[in-house]
């Protein structure tokens, strides 16, 4: 997700379109990416730790993005 302090023109464009469609109660919109990563792990904690390592090293750019990790079991 782009950092809140940075201009997010995509989120703004979506917000304008929502207003135009009559969803006038919509406040700020931010547009980011959703990645689904399948992996084998012994526990949810281990899976989350590995996912965070992936985000820190590669999947998210710390200069521009914040990330959130959620674990689901298959």
């Amino acid at each position: 997700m782009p950092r809140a302090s940075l201009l997010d023109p995509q989120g703004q464009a979506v917000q304008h379109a929502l207003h135009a469609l009559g969803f006038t109660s919509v406040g700020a919109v931010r547009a980011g990416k959703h990645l689904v990563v399948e992996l084998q792990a012994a526990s949810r904690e281990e899976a989350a730790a590995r996912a965070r390592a992936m985000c820190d090293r590669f999947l998210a750019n710390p200069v521009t993005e914040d990330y959130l990790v959620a674990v689901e079991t298959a």
Partner: protein
Amino acid sequence: MRRVAVVVFPGSNCDADTLDAAHAAGSDAYYVWHRDTDLRQADAVILPGGFSYGDYLRSGAIARFSPVMQAVAAHARAGGEVLGVCNGFQILCEAGLLPGALMRNARLKFLSRPVRVRVEATDTPFTRAYERGEELTVPIAHGDGRYVADAETAALLEAGGQVVWRYTGENPNGSTNDIAGVCSAGRNVVGIMPHPERRNARVLGGEDGARVFFSLEARNATQHAGDMRAVDGRHLRV
């Protein structure tokens, strides 16, 4: 004659123009494939423009893990000259060899047209043949060209004279402080969004970009630029 390595990633598309521009300036330029780990004793390395790995995930995010990038990082750490143009600039930022990042243009459109930039720093290996304050016309061709850095980093860049090129008149992409190009604190790594290799001959509409490549060959000018820096007090971070 300097040895100039032009790195080719899958999806690079300005590699041939960049090689030609370096040849035209008198350099011994050659390609290095992104899987290679040897820069073959390059004096300078150029990461050309294009769309490495289709810009997937983020522009430059995947290319920065290509095998050749370890050699590029080692070359940069040893003080070697590195230039990133457009996608090359994005790759250098993703690799942490330059501060900041490049995000989607503020108006969300891919822009391909000439823009005006002002040369803000001539004490880099790729701008030493320019005059400080000189204005140039060079083309941009990018969708993710909005340079961003947090306030602290931007202030450091300004204080350290690390802004190399700045858009003048109109800022096409909404970049922080109208930044079009920056250099590292050591000044040997430079990234610019506009394409100097597309404007290095009259037949291409102008020659304003040619001196980026001539700068590499202008060894005598280095000394001169060094003297100017000393007068200016701007060399303190070198």
